């Protein structure tokens, strides 16, 4: 039994033009102390998933069906107040745009202390202070910079500060949404390593959301590949990376540039991600898929289990 189990989750957005099916029938589990990577191109619904777990979808977003079980209890059935208590204390989040995730008018240390004091209001000031200091040490920001305002930090430091904040309450699950986008390769790598170190040290479960499969491959135990709102492939790192079954996963891995690896091959038929307003009933990848057949478009696909922990959403694989 995992710490977090998402079962058959579908999410839609109400827009000017109608209902947008952002996430369709997604299921996965995150085990204690393990990390899950969700990878996919922009607009595939990965951020929506992250927000849905914390029940922070924007106003026009609704969960159409499914369950989100955290520690066995369905988060969707909790009261707002109960949910508020779970946030950060149990599940915290590292946001995509760290640049903007910190409030510009408050000092960084205050923003971290605020998280602590909200959930543990009895904590004495001194303790809060020392805990914040410890967090800064952990993520490698000098203590002298604690009193700064966010705009005085560089991008990497902000990212670290956000990580520090996410760790403040030792949550059991951290959702990291594109934790390293917009950072330089070297900084990115350092932060990823740090993240993994902390996760392992504190035995925290993680969901890492990224468009870069390399990032996910670096950090995660399990990998889920999302395409147009559907979880097209899901399994442990080794099986997904070494034997990708879904054509999209293969395309993603094939497009990955390595030094010294074999040259990539990506078929180009000029097509793009499908319209999520009114998706075809079948596989959403069909018009970019090199092996697509007519039935792919028409009939809904069911996921196929190919290994102990490996599922694929493709009728050709079956």
């Amino acid at each position, binding site marked *: 039994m995992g710490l977090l189990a998402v079962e058959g989750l579908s999410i839609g957005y109400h827009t000017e033009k109608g209902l947008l099916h952002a996430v369709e029938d997604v299921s996965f589990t995150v085990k204690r102390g393990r990390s899950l990577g969700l990878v996919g191109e922009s607009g595939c619904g990965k951020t929506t998933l992250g927000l849905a777990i914390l029940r922070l979808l924007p106003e026009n977003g609704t969960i159409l069906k499914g369950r989100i079980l955290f520690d066995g209890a369905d988060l969707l059935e909790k009261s707002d107040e109960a949910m508020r208590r779970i946030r950060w204390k149990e599940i915290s989040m590292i946001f995509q745009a760290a640049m903007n995730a910190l409030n510009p008018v408050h000092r960084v240390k205050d923003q971290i202390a605020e998280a602590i004091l909200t959930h543990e209001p009895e904590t004495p000031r001194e303790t809060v202070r020392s805990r914040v200091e410890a967090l800064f040490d952990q993520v490698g920001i000098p203590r002298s910079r604690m009193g700064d305002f966010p705009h005085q930090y560089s991008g990497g430091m902000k990212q670290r500060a956000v990580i520090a904040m996410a760790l403040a309450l030792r949550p059991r699950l951290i959702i990291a949404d594109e934790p390293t986008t917009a950072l330089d390769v070297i900084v*990115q790598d350092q932060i990823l390593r740090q993240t993994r170190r902390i996760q392992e040290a504190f035995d925290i479960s993680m969901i890492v959301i990224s468009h*870069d499969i390399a990032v996910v491959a*670096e950090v995660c135990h399990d990998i889920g590949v999302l395409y147009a709102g559907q979880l097209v492939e899901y399994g442990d790192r080794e099986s997904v*990376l070494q034997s990708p079954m879904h054509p999209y996963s293969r395309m993603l891995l*094939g497009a*990955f540039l*390595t030094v010294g690896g074999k040259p*990539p091959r990506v078929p180009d038929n000029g097509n*793009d991600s499908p319209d999520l307003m009114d998706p075809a009933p079948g596989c959403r990848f069909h018009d970019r898929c090199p092996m697509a057949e007519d039935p792919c478009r028409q009939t809904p696909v069911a996921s196929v289990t190919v290994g102990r922990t490996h599922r694929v959403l493709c009728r050709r694989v079956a």
Partner: protein
Amino acid sequence: MDSKTSPEILRLSEVTKTFRQSRSFFSGTKKIVTALNRVSFHIHKGEIFGLIGESGSGKSTAGRLIVHLDRPDSGKIYLNQKEITRLPGRAFRPLRSRVQMIFQDPYQSLNPQLSVFEAVEEPLVVHGKGKRARREDRVVEILDAVRLRPPERFFYRFPHQLSGGQRQRVAIARAMVLNPELVVADEPTSMLDASISIQIFDILLRLREDLDVTFLFISHSLAAAHYLCDRIGVIFRGHLVETGEGKAVITRPGHPYTQALMDALPRFACGEKGRRYNALLNTRRKPPAPSGCPFYPRCAKGKASLCSAHAPPFKEIEAGHQVACFLAG
């Protein structure tokens, strides 16, 4: 591609560019930031030259100088052996059809108010190339070349109706429509997903074959450069630190900074914890004297007496592979 023998199309010689940045809302004083510091390199006709560096390293500035969007503070730029550094805008305009640029962000580099046709047609209009019907034909041709098919379906679409990949294709079409000799591609795929990037790269490669165009490819990724480029230059904080054949630089990096970049490349290292960042210091050193090596504060190998006081000159460690480091080779 036999680049060594083909003639030089572009040469930068000791080019320096500084920017004034206003430090704060209240202060009138400006901070001077050096984007490029005495950078020299050249590109041969028909090759793809990769300029690699972190963001803020000055690599985009180099591109902007070449297409005359900015002027260097000192140094010279030659196009086809002709100096173009200080040409006034009017005199440079005819040359524009020969040097074009593809910008980084396809979401920003297309005017939201212009349709695809209008955007791609514009260079033709500006340079007075042909009547409308002729121009239409040319636009169809070039849209087809960047695989926007069928081209006429895209004519009256607006940028917001296109995906990122399609926009970048439109941007490429706009750059190519005048049949330029040299195209500066400034991180053309950094905003795109991996699968789309490869498609864009492939288009660039094919265009080179078909149209005999030279590319200056600017990127932060050594892997992408490795995939595309014939030659590579690595730039650190405005200083060119290493140039050479793509393969040579990637496989035998001479400069500690290049080595660090190589280390940073993700490689699906499942559980592997090999030698990493040996070239980098964990903490920072004090900055060197202005004349010193710019990489010295972060360099694990740096020697206080030597590196902090003197700028390392370029040193050829193998044929066509130069490194600006005392300790290289």
